[in-house]
């Protein structure tokens, strides 16, 4: 199998003695939409920093599309587009200048750079901001500018470190659509995020990192399959009876019109609905109490520590 990213035994110990990465292994297939999750200080940004050369690794091997960064880092860098967590452009430059400069650093002639700038500004809804200085952009616009900048040399692997932080819901959804579109066109996307629903809705595979170690590395589907218990909130049409007992299900009253039901893996939701109906309880709506992936995430981190 050919990988967009291969990491073997990656270690990073900072000058102050902090061991940020303790020999992690990670494989991301070409064309994948991959999530790297972890709490603050887990090692996500350090991993990305090593891949894109902002952090010097202590030990280990990193290959981007089969190119070893120790053998030919410039060729590996050409494959990568990076959207960092913090804004890292000169805010006194215009949007166009920032993109022209970035294209130039990849050896792209001005004419081609301008064509690509037209394309990506349009796709990311920034066309009318072309001649605006970056400091005048909103947080969401700055975030989209960084995505346009990362794509200007048309990399095959796009790494996004918390790309939707500070972006409103509407803009986040349009950003999701755009990322899905470029992933469908063949770009491998690696995403770190704190929004776990973001990983669940966008990504196919996932690695969870904690204290510099990979806790799990699997598909989102497999991960959710392992989830044994889910909690649902059910809203009733009429006031609930005092006695809520239903055979085989754990139910808790939240208020007169809402109850909480814990569904174990293998239990049938339709059976619960049927039993509630038989008791004269009519359900109007139902929702997850919390993100399923978030439950899994917390559970895995608890197990690891």
């Amino acid at each position, binding site marked *: 199998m050919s990988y967009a990213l291969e990491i073997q035994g990656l270690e990073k110990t900072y000058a102050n003695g902090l061991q940020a990465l303790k020999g992690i292994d990670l494989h991301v297939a070409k064309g994948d939409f991959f999530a790297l999750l972890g709490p603050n200080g887990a090692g996500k940004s350090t991993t990305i920093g090593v891949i*894109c*050369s902002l952090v010097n690794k202590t030990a280990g091997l990193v290959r981007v599309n089969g190119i070893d960064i120790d053998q030919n880092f410039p060729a590996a860098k050409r494959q990568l587009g990076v959207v960092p967590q*913090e804004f890292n452009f*000169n805010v006194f430059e215009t949007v166009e200048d920032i993109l022209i400069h970035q294209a130039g*650093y*990849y050896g792209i002639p001005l004419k081609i750079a301008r064509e690509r700038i037209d394309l990506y500004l349009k796709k990311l809804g920034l066309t009318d901001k072309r001649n605006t200085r970056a400091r005048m952009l909103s947080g969401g616009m700055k975030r989209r500018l960084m995505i346009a900048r990362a794509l200007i040399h048309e990399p095959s692997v796009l790494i996004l470190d918390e790309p939707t932080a500070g972006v409103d819901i509407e803009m986040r959804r349009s950003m999701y659509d755009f990322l899905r579109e470029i992933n469908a066109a063949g770009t491998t996307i690696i995403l770190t995020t704190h929004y776990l629903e973001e990983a669940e809705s966008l990504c196919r595979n996932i690695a969870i990192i904690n204290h510099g170690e990979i806790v799990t590395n699997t598909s989102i589907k497999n991960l959710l399959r392992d989830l044994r218990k889910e909690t649902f909130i059910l809203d009733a049409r009429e006031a609930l009876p005092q006695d809520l007992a239903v055979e085989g299900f754990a139910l808790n009253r939240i208020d007169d019109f809402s109850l909480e039901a814990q569904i174990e893996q293998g239990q049938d939701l339709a059976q619960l609905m049927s039993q509630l109906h038989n008791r004269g309880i009519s359900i109007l709506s139902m929702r997850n109490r919390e993100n399923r992936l978030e439950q899994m995430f917390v559970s895995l981190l608890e197990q690891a520590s």
Partner: protein
Amino acid sequence: MTAYEQYIALLTLMRKEIRRYTRIWSQTLLPSAITMSLYFLIFGSLIGERIGEMGGVSYMEFVVPGLIMMAIVTNSYANVVSSFFGSKFNNSIEELLVSPTPNHIILLGFVSGGVSRGMLVAVIVTVVASLFVDLNIHSYLVVVAVVAMTSILFSLCGLINAVFANTFDDINIVPTFVLTPLTYLGGVFYSLELLPEFWATVSQANPLVYVVNAFRYGVLGVSDVSVGFAFAMIGAFTLVAYWYAAHLLRTGRRLRT
């Protein structure tokens, strides 16, 4: 990167650097013209008339090359130190570090900004100087060579300073406490012949002595040191500075964690 792609990257950096200082010309180009006019007026015209000759020429003629060179040194240095540190401060240096642009192109790009500003200021100051004294260039070749080498040397020094700087105060420490004293003690305003033997010997370690005297030779045909030796020293200082700046970029010291 292919040679053509490296050329594009270099052009991009040069364009960016030149646009940066021309956009803020009132902060980067104008001050030198005003400061040097005052130097010419006070040291050359007013005080100089009472001093008489130095090094076989009028005092005004004697100080002009040193003052032009002082402008080149400070502007080359200031351009690179402020631009590179600014990029570090707002993290936009990461745009370059994550790109495949080779370190020598990054170095050349920033240095070309410093060199072009140094040369532009040299032209401005020379025009101002010509209002005070008739300048007859002794050797254009020496003038061009020493201006180019000096601006490269001090642009490299500016970059080294910027790599180590953590705050904006740090980029002012070297110009204030090192560069300015070296400039004043580098024979801009006096001939080394006036110094006691001990201090004249100590002055040999000052790179400004060589750039000022080599330039003065190019303009007036007079110098306190051998021009060939001066060029050798400037070349040696430049090579050491280039090697060290390249080493800093290669290892990523203070740039990569």
